[in-house]
């Protein structure tokens, strides 16, 4: 399986995605450090509290990588149907489920890792420039656990976009769905937001598991057009 995942990375020139992820993180960093500086001014700090820094790091990194995951799913999975290279893949002596799963895992692993690294780097820089005081518990297990679980959840729910993309055989639809997911999970209307609702996330997670299931359950017998 890992061999297949590596081949997927190779096929899709993953170095290009790594470069883009680095650029994204750099831009986010500038943005957040700038904002943190603003927050550090006494009056705003009192108004918002120091912990709002952590929330905005989460917010921006999540937003970026949900779209990133959508783009990669479009290229790795939906694109294969669009460009019909999936016909070629299905002529190999490998189970179709495995082929499709390897594509999905290739995207998942990449984005999960990128998200964790990205958050780690941003927090580290914030710690060094020392604008957020003691809210960044760099040494605590729960701090890192939060990052790991949060990143895994965010990347996972983006797989809902797969359902739309594979059904419509359209990369554009996949990416648009990813953007809608960003709005739903990260956005707010006034003070109302779904961001903190655990049950909402659970529903999304179930939906994404269902999407993955739908994309592969009849792969072995379904005719590829």
């Amino acid at each position, binding site marked *: 399986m890992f061999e297949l995942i590596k081949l997927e990375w190779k*096929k899709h020139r993953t170095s290009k995605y790594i470069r883009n992820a680095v650029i994204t993180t750099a831009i986010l960093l500038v943005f957040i450090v700038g904002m943190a500086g603003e927050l550090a001014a006494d009056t705003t700090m009192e108004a918002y509290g120091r912990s709002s820094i952590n929330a905005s790091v989460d917010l921006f990194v999540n937003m970026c990588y949900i779209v990133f995951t959508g783009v990669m799913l479009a290229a790795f999975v939906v694109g294969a149907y669009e460009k019909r290279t999936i016909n070629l*893949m*299905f002529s190999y002596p490998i189970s179709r489920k495995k082929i499709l799963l390897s594509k999905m895992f290739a995207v998942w692993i990449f984005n999960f890792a990128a998200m964790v690294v990205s958050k780690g780097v941003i927090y580290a820089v914030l710690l060094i420039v020392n604008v957020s005081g003691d809210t960044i518990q760099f040494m605590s297990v729960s701090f890192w656990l939060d990052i790991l679980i949060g990143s895994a959840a965010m990347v996972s729910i983006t797989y809902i976009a797969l359902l739309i993309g594979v059904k419509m055989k359209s990369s554009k639809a996949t990416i648009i769905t990813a953007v809608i997911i960003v709005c739903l999970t990260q956005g707010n209307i006034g003070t109302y937001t779904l961001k903190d609702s655990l049950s909402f996330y659970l529903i999304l997670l179930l939906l994404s598991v269902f999407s993955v299931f739908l994309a592969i359950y009849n792969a072995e017998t379904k005719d590829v057009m």
Partner: protein
Amino acid sequence: MDYILQTNQVTKIIGGKKLVSNIDLHVKKGEIYGFLGLNGAGKTSMMKMITNLWKPTAGNIEIFREVLTPKSYEVLKKIGSIIEFPLFYEHMTGRENLQLHCKYMGYSKSGSIEKALDLLNITEAADKPVKSYSLGMKERLGIARAILCEPELLILDEPTNGLDPAGMKQIRELLRKLCAEQGITVMISSHILSEIESIADTVGIIHNGQMMKEISMCDIEEANQNYIELTVTNSQKAASVLAEKLGLANFKAVEDNKFRIYEQTAAPQAVARALVLNDVDIVAIGKHMETLEDYFLKLTGEVENNVRVD
């Protein structure tokens, strides 16, 4: 009989439309099997089912004496194929595409890529991205990929579509060589009959989703008669001369003023002499041999349709 590939009453229905029905197809080990049919006759549908891309609605397919199931992956190791048109990862080079193919096929013999590139004369272009290739180059690369992992069975769906006449000839020679030297079995589809005629050992003719005939080329040659083709200016008079003066029964008018005489005893000289003596002007006369095309058209009935349209 030892068939490497056999289909039993294969039917495929997609969206209520019957693409092929009750096809029985038999390919012997080590032969070149030409699969003939007009566009839309069902050639690609059959080949998709043989390579397990599609599953038959009814009937089954046996390859290497095993019935194909949705989980028959191992059998794909022994098959090289091009279905419809060769697909590549366009941003990668030809060589990278072949390397990738080897990895997925689980094949690791060194030097095989160079050999395949060389056989198809594409070594020079091997390090350019596939998106810069012409259609003919892609076909060549597709064939290189199909033969790369030493398959026992080659399934080629119209592989010479984008090739020039010289390229077609080269591919024909290559296939014949592979067949003779490595004992590869080749199933090749085409609607260009002359292309198949010179290489196939057996042909299967499919028409409107039905198998019309499976026959060896030797049998076709035997079954097809020689005939005298005759063009005259006055067809009525000519017909009466042929029937009455020469006593010929087995001839027919194929077009206005054009006859084909199938009687084996008739010699062109005698026919010419009789016609001239009876004041029938001859425009052309000559001995002919029925080609695969004639046979195909006779079988599929397309020739009558054409004449009616004319």
